[in-house]
């Protein structure tokens, strides 16, 4: 086994406290390890809370079941948004930032005290939000808390605490990287995955600052310090935080995609420049996407909306399309180099489909791109948004991105964190093998049920759409698809939580010696370093299958997009 660790020694010093990972040969700082564990545990706690809410609200919107009363439905809807979209994902990302800025760079955590402060603020904020929503009837304001809907001041304070905590943690990421560079823990450029996490961290900084701009005045307004808070201005500020927050998820998820591909298939990025440019495009253009939420708001001009909603010419979309090529292409080359060169898709058939990191990656990429990405760009088109704004097509879109995409990838990644960081043997491996598929099928049905309901005009955040009395009968069918999908997805979620809890609580302590959990005893991460330029350029190994897949994707994209223009052309004239 080739040692990956640079030869210069870990700086001698009493404060250094580390172990060497048997699988990656990288050093893991114990401070970082504890921080990763704490953040990951909080993430899973929030996932459980949000998941319970998810089950109950899905069973309410499934019209045939219609479980909760209106008060509890809206209350749990508020909770679900906060726990899932913010708490689960951000806690997991913070664990990722600690991991990326220390273990992947062979470096120490340079600011553990600061990082713990951040963690505690986030934990207090997250739990406080749950309590306020559950016990204060006025704080049923949904995730967006649109002014002038007024929640309890503690509601806004919990957002602020959480955001400040996340900002502090993000700052420790930058500190770690600077210190690692100065102490020469790594040479040359940052690894691609850390580069991607850096993109996420930079996005996180201005996202959180914009969050402060939106929420701090709302907090003061709720205390009657400010008499009024303009709802249009609030929406603009809020989405300056709310939309980029999802782009943080995007950059973090793509980094995890690269990691999973390297850990399970042993990829070498096809072209570092190509992949890094794609991240840079996110950095510069993706925050313009905030305008997606304001497309049918009064008071904004066509030009402002068109420039912003198109990310100044869809350059951030271009970034995602670049990754959508470069990751499968790298996987194809790596698998072809192993000898799976038959036909266009022989490599794909021979992928390690029983390895959760691989299946999770594939499920995540398909759901994120084919459902989430395509529907997102379409409903984010200025005029088409009129057909979709606040209908169930919206949650349909972001359940494909955030649930089917990000959450599936994060879950798959967790299975490797357990042996590598928690140093516990992964239990219930069979469950872990099936979990990405179950969760993927469930989230796909959730999204498709929501999107097809939304196409028929069903509004989101609505306890009982039959009040309107206008929805066609097929809505019952699409809402049932959504409900059944939710049951399957929740089953997948329970499988995940069970695997994690059983492993952490009952798994024997092990020093991991294997990268792959199920599919073999080889170490793709180390194999990836042996992929030669010659193998990368070999005619046999060229990513022809991937090229076919991305063109098929483009055709589907075009069909869906143009169909929506056609639908728009059939409605009333409006200007």
């Amino acid at each position, binding site marked *: 086994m080739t040692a990956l660790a640079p030869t210069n020694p870990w700086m001698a010093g009493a404060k250094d406290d580390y172990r060497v990972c048997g699988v990656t040969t990288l050093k893991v700082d114990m401070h970082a390890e504890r921080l990763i564990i704490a953040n990951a545990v909080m993430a899973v706690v929030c996932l459980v809370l949000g998941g319970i809410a998810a089950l109950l609200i899905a069973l309410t919107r499934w019209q045939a079941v219609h479980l909760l009363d209106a008060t509890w439905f809206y209350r749990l809807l508020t909770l679900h948004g906060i726990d899932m979209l913010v708490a689960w994902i951000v806690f997991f990302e913070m664990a990722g930032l600690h991991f990326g800025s220390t273990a992947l760079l062979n470096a120490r955590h340079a600011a553990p005290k600061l990082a713990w402060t951040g963690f505690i603020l986030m934990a207090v904020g997250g739990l406080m939000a749950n309590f306020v929503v559950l016990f204060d009837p006025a704080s049923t304001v949904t995730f967006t808390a649109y002014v002038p809907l007024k929640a309890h001041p503690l509601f806004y304070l919990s957002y602020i605490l959480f955001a400040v905590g996340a900002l502090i943690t993000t700052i420790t990421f930058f500190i770690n990287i600077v210190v690692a560079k100065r102490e020469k823990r790594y040479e040359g450029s940052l690894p691609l995955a850390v580069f991607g996490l850096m993109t996420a961290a930079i996005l996180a900084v201005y996202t959180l600052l914009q969050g402060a701009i939106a929420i701090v005045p709302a907090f003061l307004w709720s205390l009657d310090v400010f008499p009024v808070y303009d709802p249009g201005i609030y929406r603009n500020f809020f989405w300056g935080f709310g939309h980029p927050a999802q782009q943080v998820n995007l950059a973090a998820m793509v980094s995890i995609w690269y990691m999973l591909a390297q850990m399970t298939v042993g990829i070498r990025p096809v072209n*570092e420049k190509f992949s890094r440019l794609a991240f840079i495009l996110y950095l510069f253009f993706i925050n313009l996407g905030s305008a997606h939420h304001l497309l049918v708001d009064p*008071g904004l001009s*066509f030009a402002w909306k068109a420039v912003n909603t198109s990310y100044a010419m*869809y*350059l951030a*979309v271009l970034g995602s399309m670049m990754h959508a*090529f470069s990751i499968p292409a790298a996987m194809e080359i790596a698998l072809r180099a192993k000898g799976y060169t038959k036909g266009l898709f022989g490599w794909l058939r021979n992928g390690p489909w029983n390895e959760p990191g691989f299946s999770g990656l594939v499920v995540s990429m398909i759901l994120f791109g084919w459902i989430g990405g395509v529907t997102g760009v379409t409903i984010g088109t200025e005029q088409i948004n009129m*057909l979709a704004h606040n209908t169930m097509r919206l949650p349909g879109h972001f359940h494909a991105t955030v649930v089917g995409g990000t959450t599936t990838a994060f879950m798959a990644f967790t299975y490797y964190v357990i042996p590598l960081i928690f140093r516990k043997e992964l239990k219930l491996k069979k469950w872990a093998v099936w979990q990405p598929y179950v969760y993927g099928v469930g989230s796909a049905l959730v999204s498709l049920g929501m999107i097809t309901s939304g196409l028929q005009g069903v509004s989101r955040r609505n306890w009982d759409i039959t009040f309107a009395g206008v929805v066609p009968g097929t809505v019952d069918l699409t809402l049932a698809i959504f409900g059944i999908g939710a049951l399957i997805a929740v089953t997948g979620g329970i499988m995940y939580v069970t695997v994690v809890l059983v492993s952490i609580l009952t798994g024997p302590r092990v020093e991991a010696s294997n990268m792959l959990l199920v599919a073999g005893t080889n170490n793709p991460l180390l194999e990836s370093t042996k992929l030669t330029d010659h193998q990368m350029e070999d005619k046999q190994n060229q990513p022809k299958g991937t090229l076919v897949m991305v063109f098929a994707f483009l055709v589907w994209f075009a069909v869906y997009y143009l169909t929506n223009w056609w639908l728009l052309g059939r409605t009333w004239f409006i200007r």
Partner: protein
Amino acid sequence: MLAPEKLWWKPMGRHEKTWLTVAFVWCVFLTVMMPLWYFMGKQNVPTETYRTTPTEFNETMLAFVEQHKVGEESVNGVTLPVVEAPPGSDVYLRASTWQWYPILQFQKGETYRLHISSMDLQHGFSLQPVNINLQILPGYDYVATIVPTTTGEFTIVCNEFCSLGHHTMIGKIIVK
């Protein structure tokens, strides 16, 4: 996950170049579609907006209802005036928790300037099954110039959460 070789700034391969070009052309197409539709299409997002206050808008709306009232109908058990103004004129719709007021009546194929504003919270104007959705804010008089192209009774659903009775906020538009 691993640090790249020292020199990673290398020219892109043939496949990357092909895909990058195609994807970029697609992005340009996506961008061009919006201004193209803005000038050629019949369905565009209204932009005309005026500052107002709930009181001011309410007075204008009530005066409009008084002048053009043609009947009464019930929505959700509440009797509301049915109002029909001549084609081309300004018509007013008030959103408040949890009611759309009044019932508007239009002629198919005629143009109307539809003013909508909120008295209290944010609301969502969602006309079904036409499926036109607009955000309605207090303090903003949002003007949509519309031409109904189908006849029948249409429902206005509120699709922005406006506290607990949100789902009961239903209105009506009639097109003859």
